[in-house]
């Protein structure tokens, strides 16, 4: 039991630093740093796990003192680090970009675009979904009292531009 846990913990904890740094790096600036620490290294089940994320140029802040956008990127980094270990076939995210400014929206959408895991994201921000391979448009057909779907393959447009 401890072996399985430690293998998982070590892999995710090795992944979190590079993932968070890449997500928070902006043009010209270095990314921030993130760490996972075991409170009880001898008996991991006795203590808890501490997740610390420090945005670029900031240090030693408790998670609950970070701003809305900073917390969102910290959460997504942890999600992606866990996905690198557990490797689900796909991920579904609902409006995770709500608190992100224009730069961070672009960073997150580029990260998802380059990830090897299939990702389905609900988003209201055109700066986010402009990078998608396909769009599923949902609209309410009021007279027929139903939701309806229109799918758009964005890759066809990219080809015609080239």
């Amino acid at each position, binding site marked *: 039991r401890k072996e399985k846990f430690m293998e998982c913990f070590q892999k995710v904890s090795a992944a979190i630093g590079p993932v968070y740094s890449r997500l928070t790096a902006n043009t010209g600036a270095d990314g921030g740093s993130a760490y996972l620490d075991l409170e009880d290294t001898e008996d991991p089940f006795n203590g808890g796990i501490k997740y610390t994320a420090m945005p670029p140029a900031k240090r030693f802040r408790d998670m609950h003192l*970070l701003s809305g956008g900073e917390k969102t990127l910290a959460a997504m980094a942890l999600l992606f680090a866990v996905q690198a270990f557990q490797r689900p076939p796909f991920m579904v995210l609902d409006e995770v970009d709500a608190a992100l400014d224009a730069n961070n929206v672009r960073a997150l959408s580029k990260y998802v675009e380059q990830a090897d895991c299939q990702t389905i994201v609900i988003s209201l921000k055109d700066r986010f979904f402009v990078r998608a391979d*396909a769009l599923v448009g949902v609209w309410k057909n009021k007279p027929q009292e139903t939701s309806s779907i229109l799918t758009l393959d964005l890759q066809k447009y990219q080809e015609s531009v080239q």
Partner: protein
Amino acid sequence: GRVHEMVVENFKSYHDRVRIGPFKKFTCIIGPNGSGKSNLMDAVSFVLGVQARQLRGERLRDLVYRTEKEDPKKNQRTASVELTYVDDAVEGDQTLVFRRLITRSGEAKFQVNNVNVSQADYHKRLEGINILSKVRNFLVFQGDVEATAQRQGKDLTAFFEQIS
């Protein structure tokens, strides 16, 4: 592997049969407030074995499509969500069709490739493609993302244990 497409029938705001897809590597679901986007997320979660009570305070019966005038208790419809999973990496294409239904009597049914299976077997087949329905680590529901960063201590340990 990846999701190829989904078919929802009488699920939440979706009346009759509606096909959604094909999904690509990076697919975005867009549309106005209240149109039915999060309902699609509920549909994916539902067909992947997540319990109805995790889906916005719903009882099983609230997941079945009904018009504004109808009484939920008299709903005669059958609801279902079907997800087609494709794995090109496996020797010879492997396609799995997961389907989960709520019959008109409110009973739950599970099918893999059109064959009825028990709930336990359904979850096993999902684990076989790396979907952990109880842990839900591959899903982020609307409004939940910031809470994910603030999970600490023993909660986080329990989470890591579940994924290992």
